[in-house]
């Protein structure tokens, strides 16, 4: 599968370095390695959701209980979670570390992903959610740590967009 194992390892290591102990997730192609890493890590509580909005509740509960968490979702999952982001996280000043696979952007071949791709950044901007767009050359550890640091200092959600450039390795021609 051309989803980058190396990038997934770097992201997972960054989350561990941030003392993330709870991860909520819904399966999505770009996130499969990350979810598997969380599943195989006995020190991680992985909560597999039925729908992404539950993840806002899980992370809010974890935060109030003093535990750092992260949410793994596709950008369409972000769309599904908008009301709780507003009426739980923003309303109650709850930090969220949202790692969002950025489907439907440059290079996307699947037509069904494209509408979500078009609205992702404008939506995050409208919500006032500070956002990193993470690319392959970025210092993943530092960017994720800095995102979490701001979330905790501001008691506010932050987003890290996982781009195709980072997550997807084009098959090498044989």
């Amino acid at each position, binding site marked *: 599968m051309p989803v980058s194992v190396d990038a997934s390892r770097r992201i997972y290591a960054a989350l561990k370095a941030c003392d993330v102990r*709870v991860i909520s997730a819904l399966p999505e192609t770009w996130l499969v390695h990350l979810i598997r890493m969380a599943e195989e890590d006995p020190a991680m509580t992985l*909560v597999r959701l039925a729908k992404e*909005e*539950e*993840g806002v*509740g899980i*992370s*809010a509960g974890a935060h109030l209980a003093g535990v750092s968490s992260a949410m793994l979702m596709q950008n369409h999952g972000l769309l599904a979670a908008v009301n709780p982001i507003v009426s*739980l996280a923003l309303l109650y000043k709850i930090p969220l570390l949202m790692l969002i696979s950025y489907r439907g952007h440059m290079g996307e071949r699947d037509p069904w992903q494209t509408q979500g791709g078009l609205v992702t950044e404008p939506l995050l901007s409208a919500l006032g959610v500070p956002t990193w767009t993470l690319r392959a050359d970025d210092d993943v550890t530092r960017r994720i740590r800095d995102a979490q640091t701001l979330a905790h200092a501001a008691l506010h959600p932050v987003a890290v967009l996982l781009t195709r450039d980072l997550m997807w390795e084009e098959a090498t021609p044989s």
Partner: protein
Amino acid sequence: MKRAEALAAIYPAIRDDIVVTIMGAVAAELYQLGHRPNFFYLEHAMGLASSMGLGIALCKPARRVVVLDGDGSLLMNLGTLSTMARYRPRNLVHIVFDNESLLSVGGFPTATGTGTDLAAVARGCGVPHVAGVETVESFAREVEAALAGRELATIVAKVEAVGPASFHMDLGLIENRLQFARSLREGS
């Protein structure tokens, strides 16, 4: 049964537990019985009180967590039953007050009034202990058993569609949130 009577019957048993309630009548009636720093009233984000309770229960395994839910809220997030059942924390008790109505917004009927059986949904999702009750006595008994039972439980209580005269609570949202987080930090 009236929800206020049911809450009064279990208040002494849950007053030291971590309690997360939905908005509206449930929050106001619990508040009127006596606010505690370990009570959190989720005044919006309908459906997510149980998800918050699950997150807390997984992070605080040595504490008991009680979620006070309602039919309207639970119907907005039915998937939560499948997620709770999947992880089935032994320290989580999920109480659903089913008045077959969206009382706080004018009493519009919910689908539990036309046949949706939330206890059956919980059972079907795999919640290990489920009970449906219709009297204060059976409610108090079932909640007591669930609190002692050390397994995930969902108790669905049919209640009358009546609420308090006022929903006013002299407690700011952020005040409640900060106080609750401190109470959880200071507990085990």
